[in-house]
């Protein structure tokens, strides 16, 4: 059985290692600052006891005041999982760091989020629209797109 890690406890550990990175954590998920996302991701991938080597779903949700980007990390070795989230408040030019350097699983999924939400991933090797064509206007999965 894959154990879903408690975001609160994991958040405390991360806050000790990387001060100022954790926003909040609850039973199901952990929310971190977008500027320290890469540091947290690296910590989660390489720390013994965490070892999240397998990234599954990457997606975004538009809550109007902010975008929430969701990562579900799985550790095959310890058979545990963690919902990691980060928030972007800028609607005009939302930018967060890309995690493709750590997990290439994010390669297409970040392109898809860029395509449908317009969130830019800094450091992505090939950030282009995935499903829609170049020159398409607007970002269809935003809630204000009609």
């Amino acid at each position: 059985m894959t154990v879903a890690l408690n975001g609160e406890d994991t958040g405390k550990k991360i806050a000790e290692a990387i001060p100022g990175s954790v926003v909040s954590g609850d039973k199901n998920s952990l929310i971190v600052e977008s500027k320290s996302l890469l540091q947290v991701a690296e910590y989660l991938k390489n720390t013994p006891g965490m070892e999240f080597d397998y990234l599954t779903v990457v997606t975004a949700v538009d809550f109007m005041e902010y975008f929430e980007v969701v990562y579900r990390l799985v550790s095959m070795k310890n058979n545990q999982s963690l919902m990691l989230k980060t928030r972007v408040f800028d609607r005009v030019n939302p930018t967060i760091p890309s995690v493709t350097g750590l997990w290439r699983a994010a390669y297409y999924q970040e392109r898809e989020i860029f395509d449908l939400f317009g969130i830019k991933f800094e450091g992505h090797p090939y950030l282009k629209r995935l499903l829609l064509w170049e020159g398409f206007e607007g970002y269809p999965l935003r809630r204000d797109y009609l």
Partner: protein
Amino acid sequence: MPIKTESFYLNVGPQHPSTHGVFRLRLALDGEVVTDVEPIVGYLHRGIEKLAETRTYTQIIPLTDRLDYLASMTDNVAYCVAVEKLAGIKVPERAEYIRIIFSELMRISSHMMAVGFYLNDCGAFFTPVLYMWREREKIIDLFDMVCGQRLLYNYMRVGGVSQDLPDEFMPALKKFIDEMPRYIGEYNQLIKQNEIFLARSKGVGILPKETAINIGASGPVLRASGVKWDLRKMDPYSLYDRFDFDICTGEVGDCYDRYWVRMQEMTQSLRIIEQAMKQMPDKGPVRADVPQFFRPPAGEAYGYIEAPKGNLGFYIVSDGSIAPYRLHIFPPTLINITALRDMVIGWKVADLIIIFGSMDVVLGEIDR
């Protein structure tokens, strides 16, 4: 005078029989050798995620049929599992067994199509695939019996299945289970020792274990690389912890291993169905009491299952209304093709076709 050469660009698809749907590959070639590849997708994009935001939870089920149209039943199950997780609905035991039986039948059917078309790509033009179609037809007849549909079933419901099994279903399933091992033996006899097949697929398109994990591959593609990871065993959902079956893995992760993992999984699926038939309660409700326009509590849930092609998940955010605020589909095959570039560079164009064929891609799921 030195001869000047430059790489040649070739578009494979979108209308090409070997791309298994509308899929385009932009190849850079040096003679016949592939030096770069860029997959271009989106020709079948219907915006299912956006459409789902304006439909009720029950109305979304037919949309999920159109994702992986060769394994619609498991798409239905994955979606229902996610909604049940979100709303905290308990599925009756008989319905869980029915779901498992259909999921495993779907897995057999999907793997047969995958192997059949893979052999097509290898050059065994339509003979093996017609053998496989013969048995797939029997599975489809079983599906037809319960829901009247042959391709897009729309059979699962939130909280169970749409209707109970008809009386003639169990004897027909029993007959199929008894016959099937002989047919699998027939396929092996036809394919497994074939010189040409072995020469084309052994050692071709190797995906190393570390790369497979890093790119997030799942399903037979991951297991063929030697990773023992099957959600039915590692994170048993539904009632999968009650069954005795093995996780099939390959050794090197070449095209042959991907083919062989699928063939073995068919046998394992038959084992699961046999056990499910014995354990299933004869009578009982097949659907929890869920109203048609129900409102799950505000919140989020990620439900996932081991679909024939890999780890299929639905991420649902609810705001407490009758329609989801956001529905995201996590498609296994889109993630698997991340590895395509690593696997094909340095191989010839003819090998590219079979490497791509061995990944078992369905475009309905990639484009959504």
